[in-house]
């Protein structure tokens, strides 16, 4: 179904056009509300017909998201949303697809699928709400919970190392990798816009607060009065300055270090290159964390590569130009046939089809 729907016939849409008739059932105060509002707000700006947008999710609090978007949507099963998105892209590569997932859905049960949708570069926007906890199942530790985190399933603290979603995405050859925060709506909107503009798999980690089971998990980096000092806002081509320009990131050997701009010149400061073919820099940034470093926010990596479904369909087009559109009768005959006639009641010659 590779039907391209022209966007020209669209009437201007508003945020309200993307609000479904379903009552939103997240807990009051949940970070998901802010993300939903930002996504609904950014949708009309994208210039994409509403019927060409599909939200696909797995299981978990974040995965209720499609019900609240007045687009096409599938609330699928735990961890498998990337697989549905892959098949849907194959059926119609022109759709704008979103996968909404969480740290449990995307990195635990669906970890394998996440790796592979990224490396295939399916044209999809993956929004991973990271709250470092299982919310819908009422508070067990997740793959991003910090070591030692005490939860219902880890009363003495977890003994597990946590995953860094940005590092995982980069290791999986993701072509677009970004991080943003639920409570910073302008940054959130900008990142989502950039993700949608990117052709191929866009991976966006969204720091999201679960005020019921893991409240304040990101406070150390999102608190308004400390933000400037604890976040590094990445901008392609710009030096990595933070704290109102008073501090910067400098490389010492292979290690990034924080320097005061009183002790360094601007030439010494690392310049962000999101388009670098190699993910070296992006990976280094992904390992920077508070308190040693500010937490990088924004687009870590954005590089162009062919997207999966178009590459598959291109092979169809190439095959058709080489062999012609498939002739079913010829296919069914195969390489060799023979004929039995009623008169002879026996075989009569053969043919090469």
């Amino acid at each position, binding site marked *: *179904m590779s039907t391209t*729907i022209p966007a020209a016939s669209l009437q201007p849409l508003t945020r309200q056009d993307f609000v479904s008739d*379903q009552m939103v059932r997240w807990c009051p105060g949940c970070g998901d509300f802010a993300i939903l509002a930002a996504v609904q707000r950014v949708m009309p700006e994208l210039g994409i017909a*509403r*019927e*060409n947008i599909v939200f*696909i999710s797995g*299981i978990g609090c974040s995965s209720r998201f*499609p*019900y609240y978007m007045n*687009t*096409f*949507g*599938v*609330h*699928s*099963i735990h961890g*498998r949303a*990337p*697989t*549905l998105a*892959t*098949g*849907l*892209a*194959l*059926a*119609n590569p*022109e*759709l704008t697809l979103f996968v909404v997932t969480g740290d449990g859905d995307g990195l635990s049960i669906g970890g394998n*699928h996440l790796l*592979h949708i990224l490396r295939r570069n399916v044209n999809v926007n993956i929004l991973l709400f990271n709250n470092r906890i299982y919310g819908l199942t009422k508070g067990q530790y997740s793959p991003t919970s910090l070591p030692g985190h005490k939860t219902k399933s880890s009363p003495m603290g977890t003994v597990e190392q946590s995953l860094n979603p940005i590092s995982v995405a980069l290791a999986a050859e993701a072509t677009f990798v970004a991080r943003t925060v639920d409570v910073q709506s302008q940054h959130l909107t900008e990142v989502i816009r950039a993700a949608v503009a990117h052709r191929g798999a866009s991976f966006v980690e969204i720091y999201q607060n679960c005020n019921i089971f893991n409240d304040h998990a990101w406070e150390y980096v999102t608190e308004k009065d400390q933000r400037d000092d604890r976040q590094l806002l990445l901008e392609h081509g710009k030096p990595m300055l933070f704290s109102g320009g008073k501090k910067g990131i400098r490389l010492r050997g292979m290690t990034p270090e924080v320097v005061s701009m009183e002790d360094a010149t601007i030439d010494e400061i690392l310049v962000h290159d999101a388009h670098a073919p190699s993910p070296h820099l992006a990976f280094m940034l992904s390992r920077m964390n508070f308190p040693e470093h500010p937490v990088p926010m924004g687009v870590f990596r954005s590089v162009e590569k062919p997207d999966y479904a178009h590459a*598959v*369909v291109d*092979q*169809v087009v*190439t095959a*058709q130009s*080489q*062999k*012609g*559109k*498939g002739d*079913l*009768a010829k*296919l*069914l*005959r*195969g390489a*060799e*046939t*023979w*004929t*039995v*006639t*009623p008169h002879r*009641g*026996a075989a*009569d010659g*053969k043919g090469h089809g």
Partner: protein
Amino acid sequence: MAETLTAAPPQVGSFEDLESVVIRFAGDSGDGMQLTGTQFTDTAAIIGNDISTMPDFPAEIRAPAGTLAGVSGYQVHFSSQDIYTPGDAADVLVAMNPAALKACLRDLKPDGFVIVNEDEFTAGNLKKAGYVDNPLDDGSLGSHKLFRIPLTKLNRAALTGIEGLNSKAIDRSKNMFALGLTFWIYDRPLSATLDWVSRQFKAKPEVIEANHRALHAGYHFGETTEAFQVRYHVAPASLPSGTYRKITGNEATAMGLVAAARLADKPLVYSSYPITPASDILHSLAALKHFDVRTAQLEDEIAAMGSTIGAAFGGAFAATGTSGPGIALKSEAMNLAIVLELPMVIVNVQRGGPSTGLPTKTEQSDLLQVLFGRNGESPIPVVAPATPGDCFDITVEAFRMAVRAMTPVVVLSDGYLANGSEPWIVPDPSKMEPIQVSHPVSFGPPAEGAPDFMPYQRDAAGGRPWAIPGTQGLEHRIGGLSKEPGTGNVSYAPEHHEQMVAERAAKVARLAEIIPPAEAHGPESGELLVISWGGTYGSVRRAVEDAQAQGKSVAHVHLRHLNPFPANLKAIMDGFQKILVPELNGGQLSFVLQGRFGRPVISAPKVQGQPYKISELAEHIRAALA
């Protein structure tokens, strides 16, 4: 009674007519036995014999050379009569080494021929095969007629002087020598194989030369050795008139998927994960991109099922194929497909289980798994092909059912059908009925106050609208949670849940309206009804016909539809005193029939990874009638 070449009496040239012959080619997995068997089969088919074949190979790509585990066999049954099976026992065993002889001797008729490559009967190879004494010399071959041929040496001699060919490549073509010899014995033309070799090795003239020479050498050896006093004719079969080809079950399945998509004017999205013995379907389809076939090799079985659901949601004809543990992995997502109510086809090429089981052997032991192996009330239509060629028809039919009822449909093929082959009348696609698909279309933005689109509003067949992304005004959300009827909105209301469960069950049950009625082969009533399903069709049909010829009161119903059953099945069963259900599992269809119809059946299970032999079934029929 070993026959040595030197002692052959000089009477050559006479022909004897035979109705049918079963040959088993057996050797090391590197000996090219599958290819040898396929080539013999192709020629038999082209000559006009009816054919039925059974490859039998190890799961290991290259098991240790010379061992029993590494034996690869290919049995071909060719006949001047209508045949149903690859044959219970072989008339001729071509054994390329001691292990092949040891592994296959028990499947040889008592008076069958054994043709061996005596060069391979070395002390080392005998030991690897577990022989203490050389069976060629110790009289242990009993009544079999033995032909010992120094095949390796003869082949090397025939291939001397070919530029650019090393000794390994020379020895690799000795299967062609063996094939040439069997062609001589059964008076077959070499042309089809010569042509095939030329096409296959277009870029390697030295390999063409080697294989051509080996084939001719084997043929001429038959003529000149005088070891074979009699040659045999197997006349063409009087098959129904038409244009034929040879087909395996997996080939037919792949073409059925392509044909179904074409009949609906849809792209085919086939998502799969490599697994024996289903992978060949993926391979076939990957080569058919010019039919707008989009194949995807996913990261696992689960992803392949999920991708199939996504493709179906997008409006493509979506299918996946798997086997063994793969169907277990898919069951979670199959359930999602069932509650989303999207059309798709899931091909399960059954193999021996449980767990990894017998990857290359056949079994029918996934019936209960696909019928019931999911959480909750989740009815799914299940169909099963009867023959390799029927894989084509049943796959097209599966898509018809899927689209009508908006549901996934399972095709239960098996390893025996998938790799077995038969002559197949080539269907004319222009005479096949199109598959009608209608997607609700856009009427522009919905007007104020107009009712919302109802994704789960039932149509006459119990299906629902297949509204696809890209259709303006029909934006809707579907999911795995329980739903309100009609709107599909999430609902945990007890009566909504129960109604949706009932609606899904009803639309599956109502597929019986378009399923052809079951046919009793034989009397409409009597003492014994044999009910079979899937790949056992051929052997059961023949065993029943043999019993009927002996005057026994027995009929046969072969089921191609396992859920729902044909509507008249109960009525047919009521006409018989006893019911016998042979199947290659522990009695799964028996279990279902007894549960569904509340009457006892005689279960005849076989779980050896091997198909039913006609003789075994004859014994079950005899016992049931006793």
